[in-house]
């Protein structure tokens, strides 16, 4: 337990939460998972902030009857984290309500499809045809691909 004292474990937890959150945002395509990724990332950042001045056994910085506690917890990060949590919850709620709107309009929560449909909507509004999408292979590319597959399955 010498190496893994509670502080180290908490730091690992904070960076771990941030890592999980970032990978959730970057890797997944489902909007709900991305939103949860943001929530996890925020939780990790908040934990990191709390840890920045964490002391085990520190008392609240309140002086009662003239007794000054030997070790007092720093109130600044706590105030900041409280603010950050409130902002985070507000943004989470906003994100969910926007997700409902997007789902109603586009009928999907897949980020790739949302992006494609958004691109189509912008282009249609602007009156230009869609640029060839990088996500769909062009027709010419399909032919040799299919023929290779057929040859392989045939042999």
């Amino acid at each position: 337990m010498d190496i893994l004292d509670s502080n180290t474990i908490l730091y690992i937890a904070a960076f771990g939460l941030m890592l999980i959150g970032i990978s959730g945002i970057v890797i997944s395509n489902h909007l709900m998972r991305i939103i949860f990724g943001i929530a996890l990332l925020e939780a990790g950042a908040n934990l990191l902030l709390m840890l920045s001045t964490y002391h085990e056994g520190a008392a609240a910085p309140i002086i009662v009857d003239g007794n000054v506690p030997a070790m007092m917890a720093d109130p600044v990060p706590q105030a900041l984290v409280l603010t950050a949590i409130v902002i985070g919850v507000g943004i989470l709620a906003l994100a969910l309500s926007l997700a409902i709107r997007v789902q109603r309009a586009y009928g999907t929560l897949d980020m790739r499809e949302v992006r494609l449909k958004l691109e189509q909507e912008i282009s249609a509004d602007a009156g230009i045809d869609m640029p060839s999408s990088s996500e769909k292979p062009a027709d010419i590319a399909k032919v040799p691909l299919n023929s290779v597959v057929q040859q392989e399955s045939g042999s």
Partner: protein
Amino acid sequence: MNLLVLMIALPLLTAFLLSSINRLSTFAARVIGPLVLLATAAIGLSVWPQLSAAPQAIQWGGFQAPLGITLYADQFALLFALAMTIGTLLLWPRSTENQLRSSSLALLLAGTGSGLALSGDLFNIYVFYELMTVVSYGLIASRGTSGSFASTLRYLVISGFGAALALAGIALVYQATGTLNLAQLAQLAPEKLNNLQGFAAFVLMLVGFGVKAELFPVNMWVPEVYATASSRVSALLAGVVSKLALLIIMRLLILVFHQPEALTVLLVLGILGVATGELAAWRARDLNRMLAFSSIGQLGVMFIALSIPGNAGIFAALAVMVHHLFLKPSMFLLAERWGGSIKALAGAAKTSPVGAALFVLLSLSLIGVPPLPGFWAKLLVIMPMLALDQPLYYFAAFVILAAASLEANYLFRVVMKLYEKEPAATPHNAHATLDLATAVFLGAGLVASVFMLVPLADRLDGIAVQASDVSTYIQTVAPQPLEAGRVQ
């Protein structure tokens, strides 16, 4: 004496009271927003002369520096607080359905923007930055189309990611120094943040605050948002809000982070921003997205300017920022009716000759044709870079010049279309009078600056010198020496 506090408090208070005022009188609710912004701008302007002598620090609630909430007002901060207030006034949202909601949001934007510019500690910077972000979600989505909801959501994802990273950066700073007050951080930074942890904190905060400043890897939201939001909101976001995020990065760079690696990171990301933004703008086929991508490019130039060490870099960045502050909003105002395909703009100069002429002027200044101010701004960036005599800075200068020729190519393509003899099949809408008047006003500012170039440059240089004076900052915030950072 502390009238400056009103610059933040008045718009915020009015924003929250607006729906109650609307119950009493709809007329009052419609006019009070612009009136309050006018009053706020007047307050800011009245304080200006005092600040040119010496910056002021305001301790909210009367608690002294490291404990209380500090506002720091120098010309640099006030310039952008004023830009935010006057910019919101000029680009006051005009929608028929959600007028009340948009007005509240615009007032909130003005108040939080001024607060962000004037903040003297990281705590308030974070809070105001987040508030400003949330307000801009509301403004973008206020158009009510499915596209605006989708782009807001995509913007929110990137912004939420950035804000969490910035918070983690703040945590690293606090862990090392035990303070969030910028003056105290400036004192402690050379000793405690000149290491890997400080550098990590800088990168985290750069990426976090860079989301709004259209920094290279976190700017995917830009084209989508500017294409789906109303032009006035795009003008505000691209013209003013992005500069405020840049101001925060500049402050951190001047006061807290002095690592040479930090400048290299800025330089590389700036070069990438210029290259990708201008190339994408060159490929764009509709005016809104062309302007959006080109603003990524211009913000890239500002990041490159910031990476120049010393006072020259701050001066250059300030010049490019102020130039862009005038130019981009008026371009977006012109795009209000010219949004959509560039092909469809053929012959539009006939229906709106003033708009077309203005577009030519703005394009020339954006490219950097002398004697327009855009030329001098770019010159200020490039000259000190060449003087540094380092390969990466030479390369950056080359990229900026190459980008200028790309800009010329795509902007002149639009100009050629505008003055084409054959009109397009669908007739063009002439510009709304107010849009055009505002755009002409901003354009006239650009032309006027040509004739006041020397005093203007002196003024900007004075602002840059004052902004980069770390010891004055510390002295102003805390006349008595601050106690050393709390021992962990």
